């Protein structure tokens, strides 16, 4: 089988025609056997996780404020986003690792916390958070939100003062707008100086819903 005889380069059809009966048999490859006839893509999350190759787990969860895209690394929840899943995944692939897999099981703990939160039974998230996607200043702002408890609000200006930069209310607003871990890192608890709900990644209605859930009467 290993001796080579010179063979002229043939066009496609000729190759197939010279050995037409062989080609028919090769094409008979049976797709219905185990594994080959599956209807859905293989779930690689278990396999990858065991091999230490699951860098980013991603999945979506439906909540009263809409569909949230959840993602986690070894370090913690890196994304809880109102954006489209593919968009979030692309960003994670570039910024963290392209080994991004759908892995619902890996996200179960934080999904459970979100369920409890939206049921009004959880006032403080315990899942660790990975703020790698936030810029350094943004990270400082988001970390400072840890001091704004459930059911309370603060203002952009107050938060800026708390960070020692009283004139940076606008920058604080931008930093909050770039919050990669919405709801869990409670940027929704920051409102305008006059108490009005200003911009929010999930829309002002979502912000209102979150604050009402936490027992705040807001306009």
């Amino acid at each position: 089988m290993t001796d080579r005889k010179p063979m002229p380069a043939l066009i496609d059809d000729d190759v197939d025609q010279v050995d037409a009966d062989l080609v028919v048999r090769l094409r008979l490859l049976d797709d219905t056997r185990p594994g080959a006839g599956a209807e859905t893509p293989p779930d690689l999350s278990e396999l990858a996780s065991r091999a230490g190759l699951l860098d980013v787990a991603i999945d979506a969860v439906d909540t009263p404020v809409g569909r949230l895209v959840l993602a986690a690394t070894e370090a913690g929840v890196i994304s809880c986003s109102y954006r489209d899943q593919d968009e979030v995944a692309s960003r994670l692939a570039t910024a963290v690792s392209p080994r991004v897999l759908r892995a619902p099981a890996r996200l179960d703990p934080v999904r459970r916390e979100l369920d409890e939160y939206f049921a009004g039974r959880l006032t403080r998230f315990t899942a660790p958070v990975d703020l790698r996607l936030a810029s350094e200043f943004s990270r400082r702002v988001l970390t400072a939100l840890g001091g704004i408890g459930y059911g309370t609000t603060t203002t952009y200006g107050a938060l800026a003062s708390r960070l020692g930069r009283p004139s940076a209310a606008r920058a604080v607003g931008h930093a909050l707008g770039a919050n990669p871990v919405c709801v869990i890192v409670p940027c929704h608890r920051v409102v305008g100086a006059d108490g009005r709900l200003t911009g929010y990644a999930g829309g002002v209605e979502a912000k209102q819903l979150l604050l009402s859930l936490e027992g705040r009467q807001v306009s």
Partner: protein
Amino acid sequence: MLPPFYELVDAYWRDVARLCLAMAGPDDGEDAAQRAWLNALRAYPSLKHGRNLKGWLLTVAARAAIDGHRDRARRPVPMADPPERTSSGLGEPGVLPGDGIWALVAELPERERVAVGLRYALDQPHAEIAATIGVSEAMSRRLVSDGLAKLRIALRETEEKDKDD
């Protein structure tokens, strides 16, 4: 810039499953596909660019199928009695895919084997095969037609042997 890995899985899982089935046989096809995915996942972040990811992935899959085949060939099979010369299994339903002929494809030299797999298991045109394995289109045709010629000889030999038995 590399896309999230799950996009590759979504786009090409059927091709990977089918190629592994063709090249590793029904017993090892699924395992080969799993090995292929793990190998691909392991190597993925070190790719320098996202061009021709399909070709890269199928090459990884073909290699995983071939490596499994080699491993099995090396592994001693415990047997109580000396093996009898049995039928090749050609055409036995449920034993080998595609009428048994893919068992003979498994014996082809590696490049011909991969080219035949891409051509007939995945129905790729030669331009795509050429891109996948990094040869010219003419070479792809040549690999496939050489492979077919060897298959024909092997097939004749097997059938004659079966007749003798």
